[in-house]
């Protein structure tokens, strides 16, 4: 290795020639290779995970985003006084006697006159009013009852187009499929194209998808998530209001105060088991206890909230205990050492340090509860609800649905418009989950800045 005749130099090089750190020996080589392999596995796992996530998100966005836009037809509607206000006194109470059915003709008439005014004619077309949603008469009636003085004149309305027209522009309905479809004809699609050229038919962002209640099979274009979002929000309020204090109190007691004996061991095992109980079991429990025994109303957020609270409690307790455990015992010693009581030590020192962990656990629990479907089906939250629940606390007892149940419900319905809305509802659900997680992260940052 060295040409130097120097004794010391030669000796050293002989000793180090076998152990030069420049050339890795066999053991090191195999160790490094193992590490490299492991890294590759890990990277591969992450790549697979990300790909799956991207694929999932892309397919949901691709299928669900169209639900947020909807085709509208805007036409002038004549509001004849003789049919809408037979008494002639413009009194909304009197006018309310004319039921929605009395408005049905107006839409057809408006369509006819709009076509005539523009000289639009389509060969073999019958019933052009079919292009407009069956929602339209109710829409006119609502507007007229709140603007009675407009009766007798003409008003421009933006009506939803029927779901078939809407789907035509979203690509699910074609001329060929329309020929075989009893609800739409190719001629009607031609008319829609003409209306589009005339600027009467437009595709707009559809807020009512997020705000409107569910709608029947006759008018899928009008169906929205309003009631489901409210129902889910109410249930989350109940879960947060019950599960967080109960869960944290139980955890603090178990972790900091309870003696370790057979009883606490049994409780601990049972809590872990409870976390693994299938959620549908909680639904059966809720049905038996809260509805059949407790006499609470079916389909109500209060029952859903209670069931989800039971379901979320173990999650919160387990994560809270874990974060309490992770607070170094030396902090407790320090507090006790200066003469703090056990409770002061816990509330002044341990709990603030465990806070971020508790928060994360709670949010995970809430997110689980938000996405939970099975137990809600059992307590009747799958009912078809078109009335908004009242404001809480009374609203907790009104019928409502929940977001995931609404998704399930819509996937069960035949019309393709509902399939699209189911994906749209999933997007809304994901947005809420994302908001919750971001809130958790933000709050955690804020907490942790106080070390």
């Amino acid at each position: 290795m060295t040409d130097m005749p120097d004794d010391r130099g030669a000796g050293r090089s002989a000793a180090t020639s076998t152990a030069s750190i420049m050339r890795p020996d066999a053991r090191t080589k195999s160790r490094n290779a193992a590490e490299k392999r492991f890294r590759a596995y890990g990277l591969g796992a992450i790549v697979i995970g990300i790909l799956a996530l991207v694929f999932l998100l892309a397919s949901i966005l691709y299928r669900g985003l169209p639900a947020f836009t909807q085709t509208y037809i805007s036409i002038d509607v004549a509001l004849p006084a003789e049919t809408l206000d037979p008494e002639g006194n413009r009194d909304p109470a009197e006018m309310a006697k004319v039921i929605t059915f009395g408005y049905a003709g107006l839409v057809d008439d408006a369509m006819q006159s709009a076509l005539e005014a523009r000289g639009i004619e389509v060969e073999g077309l019958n019933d052009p009013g079919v292009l407009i949603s069956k929602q339209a008469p109710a829409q006119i009636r609502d507007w007229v009852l709140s603007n009675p003085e407009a009766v007798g004149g003409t008003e421009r309305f933006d009506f939803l187009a029927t779901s078939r027209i809407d789907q035509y522009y979203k690509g699910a309905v074609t001329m060929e499929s329309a020929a075989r479809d009893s609800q739409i004809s190719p001629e009607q699609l031609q008319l829609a194209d003409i209306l589009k050229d005339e600027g009467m038919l437009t595709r707009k962002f559809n807020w009512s998808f997020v705000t409107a209640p569910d709608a029947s099979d006759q008018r899928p274009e009008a169906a929205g998530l309003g009631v489901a979002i409210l129902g889910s929000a109410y249930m989350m309020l109940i879960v947060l209001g019950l599960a967080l204090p109960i869960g944290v109190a139980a955890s603090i007691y178990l972790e900091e105060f309870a003696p370790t004996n057979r009883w606490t061991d049994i409780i601990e095992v049972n809590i872990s088991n409870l976390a693994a109980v299938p959620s549908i079991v909680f639904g059966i429990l809720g049905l038996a206890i809260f509805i059949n025994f407790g006499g609470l109303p079916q389909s109500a957020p209060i029952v859903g909230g209670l069931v989800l609270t039971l379901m979320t409690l173990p999650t919160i307790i387990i994560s809270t205990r874990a974060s309490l455990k992770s607070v170094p015992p030396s902090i407790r010693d320090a507090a006790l050492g200066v003469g703090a009581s056990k409770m002061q030590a816990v509330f002044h020192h341990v709990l603030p340090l465990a806070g971020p962990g508790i928060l994360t656990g709670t949010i995970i629990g809430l997110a689980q509860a938000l996405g939970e479907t099975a137990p809600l089906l059992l307590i009747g939250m799958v009912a078809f609800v078109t009335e908004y629940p009242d404001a809480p606390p009374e609203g907790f007892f009104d019928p409502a649905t929940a977001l995931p149940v609404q998704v399930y419900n819509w996937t069960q319905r035949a019309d393709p418009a509902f399939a699209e809305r189911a994906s749209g509802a999933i997007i809304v659900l994901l947005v809420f989950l994302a908001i919750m997680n971001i809130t958790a992260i933000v709050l955690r940052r804020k907490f942790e800045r106080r070390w």
Partner: protein
Amino acid sequence: MKDTKISARGVNVYYGANHAIKDVSVEIADKTVTSFIGPSGCGKSTFLRCLNRMNDTIDIARIEGDILIDEEDIYHPDVDPVQLRAKVGMVFQKPNPFPKSIYDNVAYGPKIHGLARNKGELDEIVEKSLKRAAIWEEVKDRLQAPGTGLSGGQQQRLCIARAVATSPEVLLMDEPCSALDPIATSQIEELIDELRGRFSVVIVTHSMQQAARVSQKTAFFHLGDLVEYGDTDDIFTNPQDPRTEKYITGRIG
């Protein structure tokens, strides 16, 4: 001979099946520094923690015998350990500041015991305590900075400041200088010497020199036994037990 502050009689401590302290009886004098020495694992910390009932927090620990402070049995069922610990302060082996500001670390004890009537008094206690722990100069400009951001030695002095802030009558120190440099160590030793004027100080140390420098009384523990207890000068110059002699001359470790 000064008054007896702490008197332990026939104390046995068990961690489960492990008999960690074996029938130890000792009288600790008031206004005196007593040092506990002995090889690692011989039970110095365990015995020290008995004196302010910190062992209560360890589920498997079981304590037998009597420990009296000012003639009162601290393990009597009527004794509130919280009140006891306000009277018997403790500095732990590992520095354990609260993850709060330096100020809050020191102010916490006085706050919960209601020792200050207003912010001004509290500020005063904090400043006085930090000065006595020989750390005031280093932290006076950053009292609101986190206590956990200090160096290990600074953290330990902060913990000492925290312990003296509640004006205890007895101060238990478990190797308070193990993380300190010689300068800080000598500052702490000065502090201990000064504290002796008012408190009874019990200090666990692995440094013979330190025991010899700061303490008037020394207790030598070995495998859970109190082998020898007496005036520091006697222990170091004229040990009675061969184990003591071997230890202080460096032959048991």
